[in-house]
């Protein structure tokens, strides 16, 4: 009996796909494995396993401080992104005005300009602002927060506009005809209908900010590091199970954000 060629071809495709998936997940799996090694000197196979590297995270100030900074910046980015991005999305999806196309492109621009270029230009700009106003911008929370709010705007706009276009105008018009005013229609009808998009936009803004490296790189300073930068600086110097444990914490937070987002919107429509 010969196996049909269609089955063979399908198996070959699936095998190749499996290799690609393994290639994407392998580095994460290896980092997670390393976090449980007992000894500080890395040898394969390990001498034994232990959880003590997770406890040791608390002794390394730069990671705790970095985590707190990343959390603060992430929350600012999330709230700021929603506060600025949701009204802008209403203007783009619910009204028609001249120059709309250009403004849409402008709001999506932070996604197109490379992070390293945004970081470079902001660093120079903030130095000039510091000279002009004597406010500290570089290596400060406000500087980081402003930059991170800016990079969340395209994500919020993309998600909310897509959501708004899916809401039928007739439902809102029906509410108005039945006597609800604009504000009531907005809060009782439209916002509940786009809630999945709002939740996804909030989580995504947080994750985009929390994992940003290239822009933060220029805006951090001694005593004001974000978690990805603290990880990066440590890795330039050495690799050990303690940094793997810190990485596992980051992976867990991002994974939780993704899993919750996935419950509200289809991830394939977001990215």
């Amino acid at each position, binding site marked *: 009996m010969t196996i049909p060629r269609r089955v063979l071809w399908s198996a070959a495709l699936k095998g190749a796909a499996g290799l690609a998936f393994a290639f994407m997940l392998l580095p994460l799996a290896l980092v997670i494995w390393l976090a449980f090694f007992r000894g500080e000197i890395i040898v394969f196979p390990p001498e034994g396993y232990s959880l003590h590297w997770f406890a040791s995270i608390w002794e390394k100030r730069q990671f705790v401080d970095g985590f707190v900074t990343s959390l603060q910046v992430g929350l600012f980015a999330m709230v700021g992104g929603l506060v600025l991005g949701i009204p802008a999305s209403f203007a783009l999806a619910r009204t028609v005005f001249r120059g709309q196309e250009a403004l849409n492109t402008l709001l999506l621009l932070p996604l197109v300009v490379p992070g390293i270029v945004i970081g470079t230009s902001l660093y120079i700009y903030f130095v000039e602002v510091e000279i002009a106003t004597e406010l500290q911008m570089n290596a400060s929370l406000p500087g980081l927060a402003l930059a991170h709010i800016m990079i969340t705007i395209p994500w919020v706009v993309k998600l909310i506009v897509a959501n708004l276009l899916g809401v039928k105008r007739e439902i809102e018009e029906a509410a108005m005809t039945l006597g609800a005013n604009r504000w009531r229609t907005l809060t009782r009808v439209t916002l509940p209908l786009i809630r999945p998009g709002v939740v996804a936009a909030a989580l995504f803004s947080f994750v985009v900010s929390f994992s940003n490296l290239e822009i933060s790189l220029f805006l951090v300073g001694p005593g004001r590091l974000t978690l990805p930068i603290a990880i990066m600086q440590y890795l330039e110097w050495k690799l050990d199970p303690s940094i793997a444990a810190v990485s596992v914490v980051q992976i867990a937070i991002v994974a939780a954000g993704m899993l919750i987002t*996935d419950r509200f919107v289809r991830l394939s429509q977001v*990215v």
Partner: protein
Amino acid sequence: MSAGALTSDATAARARRRFGAAGLITPATLLVVLILLLPLLLLFRYSLNRFEPGQFMVEALTVENYVNLVTDSYYRNVMLTTLWVAASCTLICIVAGFPAAYVLARARSRWKSILLLAVVLPLFVGNAVRAAGWMVLLGNRGVLNSSLTWLGVIEQPVQIMYTPLAVVIGITAVNLPFVVLTMQSVIESIDRALEEAALSLGAGPVRTFFKVTLPLAMPGVIAGTILSFILGMNAYATPVLLGGPQFQMMAPTVYKRIVEQANWPFGAALAFLLMAVTLILSTVSHLLVQRHYRRTMARAEPAH
């Protein structure tokens, strides 16, 4: 009510709505202008200044920084390295990513969410963390060298870390999720009936794949290629961590010039070049994909 009153009422409503729209979109626009556009303009202006060692930056209007980028052999090498690394990673991403994108696009709902998460998760776990994973595998006493030594294949560890190979592996892994997602969204929209028709008309599965599926998926392949190339050119963490201090690509060089050496004019020129190439490639990608769709549509139209 006269027709005139009606129009003026409608005009007033339209005007109100327009001001409403302006009020809604202005704050976000202002932030992007102040925190993105103005800094970029400043960056461009500074790229035309002159760097004098010892006195930081001298006001000027010169293109010598841009000329230096091409004439100085050191920077030419940095750019050539960046280009060939980005190109090799892109090639591997497309070839390795297509089957994954195809399987993902054709997977049934439950499997599909699991596979999608498997692609999206690495995307948002920082590049530094993933570089750490590759260090575990590729280091001199890493998993690979330890296993090969234990098997007796090699006696001395093979140096992979801090070589271009390690950087290509790292950047490929970073870009692959983006490429897979880009191609899967196009493959998803290909009508399955077209493949079924080719198969039932006697084309083998391989022939169907290359003559039907692949041509229809070309917009995804084009978009994925350009996206991967852009990401590869702008890579920062992977070349620094896996390539080591000797390995020079454009993004780390920008950081060094600006922050470590305070050579703003030159760093600005390098950053601006990086952005210009990125924006041009994005636009080309957009136009190519659109043109491809228009052509396919035109061919699909019945003849009159």
